[in-house]
């Protein structure tokens, strides 16, 4: 496990799809910097060359500039390229290409947001989620499990997020009370979690490590404390963790 280094630029990226996003962000910022330097230089040059001084008279007639048109067209073209070549395909891949095929072997996890913590719900040993519903939510049942449903009794409901590296993860996000936003900076994921809706996202990690899940949408006074520990680990470690969690359920008591 490596210690993440956070600095003044993008945080480390441990997701598969993040490289595309990072490339876009970096490219756009280079483009912005170039534009800014060009314009800034032009302004400063004008301010010096055309400063008011005795004997200097402004030119009344319009200067005939064509290059500005080219510049504006250039900006438009650059935006179109960014939009069509990068933004749309990348976004479509993130949003639409859910790894549903069995050979993709995606892990499904249900994420419940509540004031002011996350709850992660894994299907447990039997691989099936128990029956859940808003009518089951209670103080001693934060995941909203039907306790009478045996399929759900071995489900793992924890406050920290674990998932294996190199395996797609499908997360089904629900909120109990207000709008939250599921954010993992190192995974380049943000997704609002809206009560009354179940929103499905997917992602895949390419490196292991210990990070944090946060909430990115103001959800009340404990918003700042709405974090969870994130552990991305190897498949073996993840299996080991699942076994430990199974033990902790104390089903054999």
């Amino acid at each position, binding site marked *: 496990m490596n210690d993440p280094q956070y600095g003044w630029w993008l945080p480390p990226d441990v997701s598969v799809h993040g490289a595309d996003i990072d490339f876009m962000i970096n490219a756009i910022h280079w483009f912005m910097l170039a534009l800014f330097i060009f314009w800034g230089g032009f302004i400063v040059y004008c301010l010096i060359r055309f400063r008011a001084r005795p004997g200097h008279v402004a030119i009344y007639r319009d200067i005939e500039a064509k290059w500005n048109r080219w510049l504006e067209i250039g900006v438009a073209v650059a935006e179109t390229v960014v939009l069509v070549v990068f933004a749309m395909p990348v976004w479509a891949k993130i949003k639409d290409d859910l790894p549903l095929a069995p050979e993709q072997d995606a892990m499904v996890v249900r994420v419940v947001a509540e004031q002011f913590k996350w709850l992660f719900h894994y299907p447990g040993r039997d691989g099936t989620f128990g029956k859940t519903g808003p009518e089951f939510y*209670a103080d001693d049942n934060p995941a909203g499990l039907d306790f009478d449903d045996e399929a759900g009794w071995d489900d793992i*409901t924890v406050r920290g997020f674990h998932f294996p590296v190199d395996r797609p993860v499908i997360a089904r996000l629900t909120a109990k009370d207000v709008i939250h936003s599921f954010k993992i900076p190192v995974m380049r994921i943000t997704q609002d979690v809206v009560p009354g809706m179940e929103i499905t996202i997917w992602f895949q990690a390419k490196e292991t490590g210990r990070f944090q899940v946060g909430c990115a949408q103001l959800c009340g006074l404990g918003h700042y404390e709405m974090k969870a*520990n994130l552990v991305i680990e190897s498949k073996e470690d993840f299996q080991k963790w699942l076994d430990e969690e199974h033990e902790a359920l104390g089903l054999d008591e």
Partner: protein
Amino acid sequence: MDKRLFLVLASLALVFPLSSGADDGKPWDPAVGTATITGSVKFTGKKPRSRPIDMAGADEKCAEAHGGKRLKPDTVILNDNGTLRNVFVWVKSGVEGWSFPMPEGDAMLDQKGCMYSPHVQGMRKGQSLSIKTSDPTAHNVHGYAKVNRPFNRSQPAGAANVTIKMKRDEASPPMKVKCDIHPWMNAYVAVVEHPYFSVTGDDGSFKLENLPPGTYTIEAWHEKYEVMEQTVTIGDKETKTVEFAYPKS
């Protein structure tokens, strides 16, 4: 949603004349209080299931207090002798007309290891609830009072006690207290006009002492189950036993 203003006004209008009337009761005479009601709360049904709380995933400081051991929610705790813990038993009616002396000190609610202690307690109307934090992490105590004024106060680690004066009766149901940062934390505080209340402990028993002789309605309240009521008439220097059995079948 925003019924608070309305509730405050309505309760002012309703409670004010009532409570001022009640306060005029004659001073309590300890010589009258000779009767006792005892009993226990049995649990007869199937043991309800519960699942452990994972504190470490969200806040390691909480988990450290328990040495990594997973706690289960305090909601339904069954004692070894088949009784139910954390049932609030109190005299709902029958002791009107007295003005009882106030106990000294505040009712205490401690936040320890990201759990509230005690989970259920009673306190007197006019007494203050003092909420303490013993944890190295921030808490936010949120009182969902329906009769009293609701409160919502943050307590960073090491903060001073939050003290709330409870000005009105609120026992049926008691006020719920939650931590807005650790959603698994909850507690109940009942505010009663008189000193005749008790919470069942690890033997499931309760005891209401120093009652004047008379006829009383005894109410038992548990956070998960229905409210139960029994009427009992008790004479001078008498001790009667009242048994409750949960859940209602």
